């Protein structure tokens, strides 16, 4: 008989704790209702891509030496380098260059290995088109200067979480000019230079001490 009552007591306890957890969950959901939306209202607001964002590839025709390194490092040999040998000058003459962004995976190997830096990554990512063939960019399309979210007057640029001032979670809350948390890369470089010069002094002092000994 006591076993039965214990079972009933356990069961009741379980039911009560389940109800308690349910209320806790409801409190969490209710709390979320008071928070500000974290969504970005896309066509009107856009996030600013980070410095190392790998978007559409930009290409400068005049810098290119038609070495085809980009083709060799590409996982699928995607760039098409159309050149002919000029017998008189004994030099390659570049006629056309194209990359198909419907196939490109934006790994950035071509940009990494280009000996003349004629390839570079932009922050453009809106490449949608009605026809996949229009994603095949020739050297003119590749040479178009990239547009930026920050210069578009019809778009409100928003910073990503890592670029906001300390303690701020929502880019709507602060003006775009407020400095980000932590040091800028240039400031970090200065700091590193100072540190290394200090270390150099210490090292030279210890060296002189050793020489004395």
């Amino acid at each position, binding site marked *: 008989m006591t076993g039965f009552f214990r079972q009933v007591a356990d069961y009741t306890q379980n*039911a009560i704790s389940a109800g308690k957890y*349910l209320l806790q*969950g*409801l409190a*969490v*959901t*209710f709390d*979320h*209702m008071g*928070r*500000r*939306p*974290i*969504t970005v*209202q896309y066509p009107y607001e856009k996030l600013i891509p980070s410095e190392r964002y790998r978007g559409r590839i930009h290409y400068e025709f005049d810098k290119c030496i038609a070495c085809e390194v980009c083709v060799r490092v590409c996982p699928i040999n995607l760039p098409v380098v159309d050149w002919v040998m000029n017998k008189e000058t004994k030099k390659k003459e570049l006629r056309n260059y194209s990359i198909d962004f419907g196939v490109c995976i934006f790994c950035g190997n071509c940009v990494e290995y280009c000996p003349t830096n004629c390839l570079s990554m932009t922050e453009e990512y809106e490449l949608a088109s009605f026809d996949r063939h229009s994603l095949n960019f020739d050297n003119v399309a590749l040479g178009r200067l990239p547009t930026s979210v920050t210069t578009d007057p019809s778009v409100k640029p928003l910073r990503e979480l890592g670029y906001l001032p300390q303690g701020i979670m929502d880019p709507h809350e602060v003006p775009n000019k407020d400095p980000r948390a932590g040091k800028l890369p240039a400031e970090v470089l200065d700091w590193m230079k100072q540190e290394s010069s200090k270390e150099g002094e210490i090292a030279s002092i210890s060296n002189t001490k050793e020489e004395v000994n």
Partner: protein
Amino acid sequence: MNTGLDLELSFNNLLQGFGISSEISHILWLPLPMLLVLSSALIGVLVTVWLERKVSAAAQQRIGPEYAGALGVLQPMADGLKLLVKEDVIPAKADGLLFTLGPILVLIPVILSWLIVPFGQNLLISNVGIGIFLWIALSSIQPIGLLMSGYASNNKYSLLGGLRAAAQSISYEIPLALSVLAVVMMSNSLSTIDIVNQQNSFGFLSWNIWRQPVGFVIFWICALAECERLPFDLPEAEEELVAGYQTEYAGMKFALFYLGSYINLVLSALLVSVLYLGGWGFPFPVEWIANLLGQNVDTPLVQVFTGSIGIVMTIIKTYLLVFLAILLRWTTPRVRIDQLLDLGWKFLLPISLVNLLFTAALKLAFPIAFGG
């Protein structure tokens, strides 16, 4: 007993004043409350759909519909319009008659149940003696429609969804009816009007929720299960069953299901407020306030005022419950079918039985507090 505002009587008197016989004035009166309740049910659904989308968005830190009307209030209208002009597809191997009959059979009992929902002393279509029992009886027609549409779709997901819906409705009907029975036992009547009147003698202190806390919780759980709301939405569990019995439906037939589920939700919330939260009753009895202000309760102006307060109170209570249902939707995970049946048969049924017996014992022991 305070009869309060009686629109039917005033209407009939007015028409008879123009020399129209009482039969004709009665016939003229009949369609008015029906139209009114039908349109209020539809508006209630539109508001609920909007509320669902907005509250869901807020719970997920989104904005929700924004461009269709101010704050997206026209979004449910736009949804309805879209469904209205969509192509009405009946799958080639489906049973056309049953396929069409299914959504109708789901929607009609739900709308019929609005017959007994009171917004005031005389503000309901008909004060039938069996009142709340009529609702329970009508709501058991619904699973037939669900099963019918699931079976007729000739699709395994639809069939599974229909079977689940039927199993769920049947298992949760019993604890629901038992918890209603406990309330009925206390108020000695099945009529919704009497049930509310019995709760409103001392304002919010005499609401049934204090005397029937267990019954309230059981009723709410079962009502959610009957409406197929999360955590009990497994008949249409989209991750496993595509959309359950709704899978093959499009256009207006889908809209009927959609409408039915939301009308059912509003109806359940209304009935919870009627059975447990004092229906149209203000938290403090309106008669007291009227006496305090030195007004006679029977003067026409005060009657109109108390009548409107009653409607507003019913709607406020209902929408608080709808809000709770939406909040629960984003809090609780969906239960499995075995967990659902376990909860229904092994937990809610015995507890509601014990609750009923306990209420009967209390009624015998304390007839003053528990309606002797």
